Structure formats: C-alpha cells, structure tokens
C-alpha cells in the first residue's frame, strides 16, 4: 500500500486475522449459534414495542384518525413527520451502498450490508404513515396507485403526493433488489458452511443456486454497478420529491426552492447518525468489533460533520431568505418558529443538528464510542424535530388568525412513533440473526485489492 505523506491513508479493513475462512466464521457466527441473552433482551423489548405499534394501528383503524391530535389547520401532525423522518433514515443506506460504491470507497464494505438493510426497514416504517394518514387505508389502493376503479377517475399525476407514491415504492423495490443481489454470494457461503440439512435447504433456496462461477461474477458485477448507478439518482429523487410535498404548496415556511437539496442533505445526515447508532450496538452485541472497527465509526463521524454543515447552511439560508424576501408573512413564519409557542422544538433542533455534531471535529470524540453514541442519538432527535418544526410551525398559524390552533399529539400519536422504532429494531435484530450482516464476498475482494494494489489486477 502506498504511504503518501500528507494524504489520507486507507485504514485496515479488518483488525487481526484476515484469513478468509476466519472471516466466514466470524460473520456467520450470529447465524450459526444460539442468540445471546443480550440479543433476546433487545429482541423482546423491541418486539413488545412493535406489538404496541400494531395495537395503535388497530385503534387508528377501528376508531379513525380522530384518535390523533391532528386538527384544522394542523392536518399533518406526527404521521407526516414520522414519514419524512423514516424515509430520511433510509437514505444513508443508499449513500453508503450506491454512492460510496461508485466512488470506490473500500471502507464501506464493513457497513454497507447493514446500512442497506436499514434502508429497507426504514422505508417499511415510513410507508405505514401516509397509508394510515389517508384515514381509510383499505381503500387507499386506488387513491394512491393508478388502479382502475368504479369511479373511473384516475389519480392526479400533477400532485407531488402522487409522485411520492411512485418515488417511495420504486425506492423500496430497487433497494430490495440491490440488497438481495448483494446477498446472493454470501448466502451461498452460508449454505456451504451449513451442516444441518434444513439450514442447508433454506440458505440453498435463498442463494438461488449461486456457484461463484466466473461467468456469473461477470454478469453480477455489471448488474451491481448498474444498481448503484440507478440507486444514486433515485435516492436524490426520492427526498427531493418528498420535499415537493411541502414546497409545491403555497404555504409560507414550505414554499421554498431550497427544500430539495436541504431535505436530501438532512436525510443523509439523519441516516448516517442512525447507522452509527445501530452499528455501535450491533458490533458489540454480535462481537464484530474487528470487522466494524472504530475507524469505520470515525469515518461515519466525519460524514456526519459534513452533512451537519450542509443542514446548518440550509437553516441559515432559510432564515436569511425569510428576511431578504421582504415578505411579511415569510418573516412572521420564521419569527414564529424561533420565538413562537414551538420555540422549544426549534432550539432543541438547532442544538442537536448544528451544535452537537461539531464535536466530531475533535478526533478523540470521533473515536470514543461513549461520546459518539449520545451525539448520534441527539442528531436523530434533532432531525425528527426538524420535520416536526417544518410540518407543525408552518401550519398552526396560517393566514387568518381566527384559524390559529395549537397542535397536541395524543397517546396514539406517541404510540405510533415509538412503535415504529420497535418495528425497525425488531426487523434489524432479526436481520442480524439470520442473514450475514457484513458483505463477505466484497470484503474479500477489497482485502485482495488493497493487498495487491497496483499489482496483478491491472491485467
């Protein structure tokens, strides 16, 4: 490996023994051994929360969204806040799996599979909210999708809400295919390690008969590159379109051209914080510390600072434009955000998203997981509050002061929010238990390449 002084040197991808058979054993260990007590505790807790989600969904379906705190003018309460939050969480997964793949960042191999899984589970959580927000989700199929129905009316393709349906469902499908394609060779590895016939049969079924043939690899690599190339503009489009839900409307506080880049940066920021948070727990729970090293967490910390600065810039520009526009309504909305009844949410958001991440400038903070963990939790809180601020403060004081009304979430709102975290962590825990959480074949490839950089591979 070249040691150019003054340039960033790639860190070792694996600490300790990098023999391939050892890597297989380490990565497959959570799949091949009975889960630990820690896993069970985490699983039961998050499973209970997920059941609570089911309960709150049942309440919503049985009694209607009158059980929520939404009112007129605040028609978009927690549901849309949660939707935007969860979609955003997913974006870091695609950044790591697609964009960093195109940029040939080898360190991503340690965290990419996990981040991709997070994307899929986050989109599942996100998808629940607009669906139940329609009020009658059992009729939503033909409200949301262009399906033939007895009214003969089609959905409105001029509406960003309709674009959103296409964007999110495409995002989910493409992320799932991308993830599964990446899993194929690793599932074959697990299949070939299996001794029990049932385990062999299940992983054999999932790996679709992968043989690692060179001809198959040639197609595989081409397909993988294509998926990365497709997912990159897709992920930018998804949160841009989510931001259109707001910015295409004529509401001050929403009607802003900075929204698409601001939302995409915020999404990646919150997603990276969630990746870091889950990885810190997961690497300990499954004893993967030598594969997901402190270096990996440190790189995530650096990316978090970068995206935090982008988000801070967007906050500053929003405030500046509110003043510079000369529009009395825009100025009012901005002042109302910062000093109105929801000022607490605004200032917690500023503290969590602008101030705390700056600690990651300090190397010792980035490398100390006891410091990283609380900061990334704060970022998640801050990013959830950001969406809350955007949704609620823009709505609760609209054009006619006689219409002004405060928004107060109910226990069902809180239950759905907490429950969605339960569902997310349950799925994540099951994933780590049953599927290889680190890309085995890609890690091997990256190890070979960094070992022989500049050598035989230039055929």
């Amino acid at each position, binding site marked *: 490996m070249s040691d150019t002084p003054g340039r960033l040197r790639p860190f070792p991808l694996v600490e300790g023994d990098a023999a391939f058979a050892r890597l297989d054993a380490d990565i497959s260990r959570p799949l091949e051994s009975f889960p630990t007590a820690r896993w069970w505790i985490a699983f039961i807790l998050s499973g209970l929360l997920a059941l609570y989600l089911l309960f709150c969904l049942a309440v919503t379906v049985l009694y209607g969204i009158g059980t929520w705190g939404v009112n007129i003018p605040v028609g978009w309460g927690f549901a849309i806040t949660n939707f935007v939050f969860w979609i955003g969480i997913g974006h870091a997964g695609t950044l790591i799996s697609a964009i960093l793949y195109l940029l040939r960042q080898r360190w991503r191999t340690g965290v990419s599979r996990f981040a991709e899984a997070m994307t899929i589970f986050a989109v599942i959580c996100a998808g629940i909210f607009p669906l139940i927000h329609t009020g009658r989700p059992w009729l939503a199929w033909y409200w949301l999708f262009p399906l033939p129905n007895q009214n003969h009316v089609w959905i409105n*393709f001029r509406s960003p809400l309709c674009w959103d349906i296409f964007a999110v469902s495409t995002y989910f499908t493409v992320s799932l295919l991308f993830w599964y394609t990446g899993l194929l060779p690793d599932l074959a590895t697990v299949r070939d390690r299996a001794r029990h016939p049932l385990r062999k049969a299940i992983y054999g079924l999932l790996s679709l008969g992968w043989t690692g043939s060179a001809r198959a690899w040639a197609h595989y690599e081409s397909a993988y590159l294509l998926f990365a190339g497709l997912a990159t503009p897709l992920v930018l489009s998804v949160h841009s379109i989510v931001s259109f839900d707001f910015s295409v409307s004529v509401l001050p506080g929403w009607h802003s051209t900075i929204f698409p880049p601001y939302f995409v940066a915020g999404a990646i920021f919150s997603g990276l914080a969630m990746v870091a948070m889950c990885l810190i727990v997961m690497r300990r729970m499954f004893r993967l510390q030598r594969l997901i090293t402190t270096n990996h967490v440190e790189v995530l910390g650096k990316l978090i600072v970068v995206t935090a600065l982008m988000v801070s810039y967007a906050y500053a520009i929003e405030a500046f434009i509110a003043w510079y526009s000369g529009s009395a309504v825009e100025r009012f909305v901005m002042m109302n955000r910062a000093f109105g009844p929801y000022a607490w949410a605004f200032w917690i958001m500023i503290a969590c998203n602008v101030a705390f991440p700056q600690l990651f400038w300090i190397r010792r903070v980035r490398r100390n997981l006891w410091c990283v963990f609380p900061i990334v939790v704060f970022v998640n809180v801050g990013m959830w509050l950001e969406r809350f601020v955007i949704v609620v403060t823009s709505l609760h004081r609209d054009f006619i002061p006689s219409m002004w009304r405060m928004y107060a979430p109910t226990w069902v709102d809180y239950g759905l929010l907490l429950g969605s975290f339960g569902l997310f962590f349950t799925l994540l825990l099951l994933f780590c238990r049953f599927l290889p959480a680190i890309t085995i074949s890609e890690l091997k490839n990256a190890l070979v390449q960094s070992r022989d950089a500049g050598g035989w591979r230039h055929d």
Partner: protein
Amino acid sequence: MTERDRPLGIVGLLEDPEALVRAARKVRDAGWRRWDCHTPHPVHGLETAMGIKGSVIPYIAIVAALFGAAFGKAMQWWMSAWDFPLIIGGTPLFAIPAFAPVAFETFVLFAALATFAALLVLCRLLRWHSPLHDARVMHRVTSDRYAIFLDASDKRFSEPEGRRLLAECGCSEIYVAHCADERETAPRGD
C-alpha cells in the same frame, strides 16, 4: 460404470487469485471450451484471462429504462388526457413537466427489474441446483479457494490430460468430481 460414477469434470484448487488468472490464461490458450472458474469473490482480470465477453446486462437495462420512461409518460397521458380528461389547476391536460417525476421513477424501476431478471437468467440462477453442489466443489470456493473446473463435456476432455494441465497451472489439489459424490455419503431422496 454406472451413471452415478460418470465423471463430471476435473477440479483444481488454487490458493490465490493471481495464480488463478495465470492459470486461466493457460487453460484458455490450451483451447478448452467448456470450463469455468469458481471464486469466492469477483477476481479482476479473470474475464480477459478466460476470454469471457463483457456482460450484456447494461444493454438490457438501457432498453428497459427507455421503455419504462415511455411507459410512464404514456400511462399519464392516457389516464389524465384521454381516458378521463380532468382540468386541474389550469394546467394543460398533458402537463409534460408535471409528468416528469413519475416517468423518471418508472425509468429507474423498469431498469432495475430488468437488470435483476437478466441477472437471474444469465447467471442461471433460480435453477437452485448445479451438479457442482453435490460434487463437493462448492465447499471451498465460497470460502477461501479458487477453483478451475474442466467440464467432462468438453471434446478434448480426458482425465490424464486434464490432470496434467491443472498440475501445470500449479493447482494444489486436483480431483475428479463425480455426479454423485455427495449422495454417497449423505443419501437424499430425489
């Protein structure tokens, strides 16, 4: 010699990818047609060394993508401007800019679905079973070995010839794979 004992081919195992690329070049130059390499990860330079042409998946994907975009636009035109024309917000019935996001999404969706379908077909996945699974070839090559497999159906195939070639390539282990290696040790009903 029963059907079960018919040799499937000869397998040679190597320990590092660099040696595999050299070996693949040798087998290619020796004029073999029906042979393959099996590796735990994609090995760069192996395609050229084996004389494999580039994948056709990108061409399939671009055709599907363009079809998807056209489909997206056409669907929106048919639904909004033809089947049930409805003026919304004073925009034209066929509002091209407003129909761009959905067309973009169908562009990506069709490309991704086609890429995945092409991958399944071209890699011969979904067959679930390859005789190599039974022949104990797989156990090492999804872990830490690089295999060259000379198929018995190649017209220049003969056991001593294959063994000689693989030994020349520097294979550490060489053995003949039979159709039913696995079945003899662990009988299964099929």
